[in-house]
């Protein structure tokens, strides 16, 4: 492991701050998604509890207060939603610098920025400064990560904390503080999203690999190496932080945690369109996450990731073959932490909705692997000339940046070169919408043309997102939300499997198409107006 110097820290800060500014400047056009609507509402509920905490601390901890303020959206832990609430409290309600929804998006952007900075640090520690930088920029210019980085959601956040826990794990050393830090960071990770619950399994597999020579079978008994301290720190501090951060759990921890875990173990399936076929129920194709990575990341990155994975796998094989025990086995750790999330989603019964976001936490590590392979090749290609090295690196990074730029603010439906871009993916019958954010670009037309008090049916854009648009002034306050298309004056249909019926209904019910949100001619959402 290479230790970090002050230049590395400064560079990581620059990457983080640069990413944050970039996302902040681009956020205005990114529509509010369904889940953001729910989290805005949750943040406002939790914000009331923080108000109480600051004004009447003794009241805040009663069960009545906890249940009335923390019961909404118990499907997810509340670290991020609390940050949304505090950001709303601080930047909107106290300082008045931002509107509420934008203020609530800041923590998500901050976590995306953290993910980029931490990717640099991990790449730097595992390999070289250049590898770290290349990996961090590859992440920044991954179109779908770029999209999710704007959201008041948990996906960029769990990507950041996934890397943070790995950094804490590889830097824990022998010290008590190193282990305490690991336990605390893990606690924050599981307080962010349930993806992080799998980290102990990943580290456990890694530990088994590192300690493989210490398992001794003698007299029919298996002798195990001593249980490592990280198990203790993650096993005690992680759950403790998790429990402490979530007031909703306090009145009845066992039952409420059981409900939370059960919710995710039995999560419903939302349909996904995949090569022209609607995937509604399991079994789902095992290829799904791998193919999606291949057609949503820049082709050159995909090639580097495959070659890098094979290189790291070869290192692991050599370690096994030669019996070299360094007890760290970083190649194996990188492979595990990069690929485990995708392997998990590849299970035929695991829900696959949500594009690539549910295994995005593995992406930074995959990109470190890719960069570690690409950097020596870049040097060789540039003949070790500094100027040319920069040029070749730019050629490696720019396809992602160009695709991100071309598809923004609809990175949720971005496809890269291997699919033939976004038009090629539409031709292949791939999904390009699932979250209801694309209505944002139709609001101007509605504001101009809708009659006073007109009713809008917005399909996948839910009531909470509708309210957020009105709160930010993006949608006229007199317009009303219609729960179904039958009584609406205007209708929006998203181009996604569970909205086929909507577009079909609107076409057959006196509605006339008047506009569409398009990216390079590919529709994301269509607007219909009811004929008199």
């Amino acid at each position: 492991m290479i230790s970090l110097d002050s230049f590395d820290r400064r560079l990581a800060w620059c990457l983080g701050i640069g990413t944050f500014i970039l996302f902040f400047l681009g956020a205005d056009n990114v529509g509010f998604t369904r889940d953001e609507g729910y989290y805005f509402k949750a943040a406002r509920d939790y914000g009331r509890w923080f108000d109480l905490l600051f004004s009447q601390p003794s009241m805040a901890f009663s069960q009545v207060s906890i249940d009335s303020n923390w019961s909404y959206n118990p499907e997810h832990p509340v670290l991020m939603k609390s940050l949304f609430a505090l950001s709303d409290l601080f930047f909107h309600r106290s300082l008045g610098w931002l509107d509420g929804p934008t203020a609530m998006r800041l923590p998500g952007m901050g976590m995306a920025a953290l993910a980029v900075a931490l990717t640099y640090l991990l790449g730097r520690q595992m390999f070289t400064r250049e590898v770290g930088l290349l990996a961090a920029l590859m992440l920044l210019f991954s179109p779908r990560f770029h999209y999710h980085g704007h959201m008041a959601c948990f996906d960029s956040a769990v990507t950041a904390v996934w890397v943070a826990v790995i950094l804490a794990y590889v830097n824990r050393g022998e010290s008590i503080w190193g282990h305490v830090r690991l336990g605390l960071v893990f606690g924050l990770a599981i307080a962010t999203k349930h993806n992080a619950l799998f980290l102990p399994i990943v580290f456990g597999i890694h530990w088994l690999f590192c300690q493989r020579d210490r398992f001794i079978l003698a007299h029919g008994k298996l002798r195990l190496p001593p249980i490592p301290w990280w198990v203790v720190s993650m096993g005690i501090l992680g759950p403790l932080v998790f429990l402490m951060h979530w007031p909703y759990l306090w009145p009845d921890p066992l039952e409420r945690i059981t409900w939370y875990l059960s919710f995710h173990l039995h999560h419903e399936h939302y349909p996904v369109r995949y090569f022209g076929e609607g995937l509604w129920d399991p079994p789902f194709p095992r290829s799904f996450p791998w193919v999606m990575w291949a057609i949503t990341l820049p082709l050159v990155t995909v090639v580097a990731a495959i070659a890098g994975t094979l290189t790291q796998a070869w290192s692991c094989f050599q370690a096994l073959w030669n019996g070299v025990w360094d007890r760290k086995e970083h190649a194996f750790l990188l492979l595990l932490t990069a690929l485990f999330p995708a392997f998990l989603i590849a299970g035929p019964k695991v829900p696959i909705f949500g594009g690539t976001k549910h295994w995005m936490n593995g992406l930074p590590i995959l990109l470190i692997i890719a960069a570690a392979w690409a950097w020596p090749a870049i040097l060789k290609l540039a003949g070790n000339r500094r100027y040319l090295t920069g040029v070749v690196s730019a050629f490696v990074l720019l396809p992602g940046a160009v695709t991100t730029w071309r598809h923004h603010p609809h990175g949720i439906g971005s496809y890269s070169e291997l699919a033939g871009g976004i038009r090629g993916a539409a031709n292949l019958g791939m999904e390009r919408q699932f979250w209801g954010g694309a209505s944002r670009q139709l609001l101007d037309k509605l504001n101009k043309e809708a009659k006073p008090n007109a009713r809008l049916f917005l399909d996948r854009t839910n009531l909470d997102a509708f309210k957020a648009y009105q709160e930010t002034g993006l949608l006229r306050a007199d317009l009303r939300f219609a729960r179904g298309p039958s009584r609406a004056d205007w209708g929006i249909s998203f181009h996604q499997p569970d909205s086929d019926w909507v577009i079909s209904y609107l076409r057959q019910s006196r509605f006339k198409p008047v506009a569409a949100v398009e990216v390079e001619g590919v529709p994301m959402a269509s607007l219909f107006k009811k004929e008199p």
Partner: protein
Amino acid sequence: MRNHLLLLTALIATWALQGGTAWNRPDETARSRLIQSLKEQVRPKDEIVFLPEWEWGWAHRLYAVLEAPTLRLGREDLYRPHRGLWVIQGPNAEMVFDHVGTLETDQAFGPYRLAYFAGEPQAEPLLQSIAWGNCRTNRRRSICRQKQGELRRGEVIFDGRFAHGYKLKLPPNGKATLIIDPKNSSTIVGGIGHTDHGARHGQAPVQLAIRQGSELLFRYAYKPQTGLRPFRLQLDNKKPLQFEFSTTAPDRNEMALSLGRQ
């Protein structure tokens, strides 16, 4: 292969494809010219289809210029006969089909083609009248229900593809006999198959036997797969046709019929 050569190859392929996709973007000026030209040429009974069918932006642009255009909804909707069909073909579209009629005009507007296919002036593009038991659909009546089954005229859905036609929900006994009167036509043309819902839930093939009087004209077992199979029935006489649907697994079977008379 050496790593740097692999990287170089990947870079060349990436940038070539990136350039290709950038080249392929819509051309708004050409689009407007095409629509203007279409407006000048389209006749009242003509229909219009744009391909690729997912390029839905054409629809509102056409509606903005033409008075209530009659749209075909994509390639699944092209099996039916027509009286005149305008095909707008954009980049990424598959080639114009050979079964849509006789090509009369073909114009290029930047990356787009506007082709006109002559049809049969007497054709009935979508059957309006189908009988099921005592019920018969007509121009105004679009639904017939029988023993928890349903025949409904409207759009039928095939996982993001659409067609005008009939959705047939088979009743729990798994049997339905539809009567179609060929009138003076010699051909029934279109497509039959499972809707996406039907394909998802269908657990056994749906058999279709078509009889005219006692004569069996056609028999086919439709496996639960989304989409229409083209269908063309040449008739020698004018007796009513019986479309007999049956299946051994009747739960939630949903078929689509997109048929016209030629």
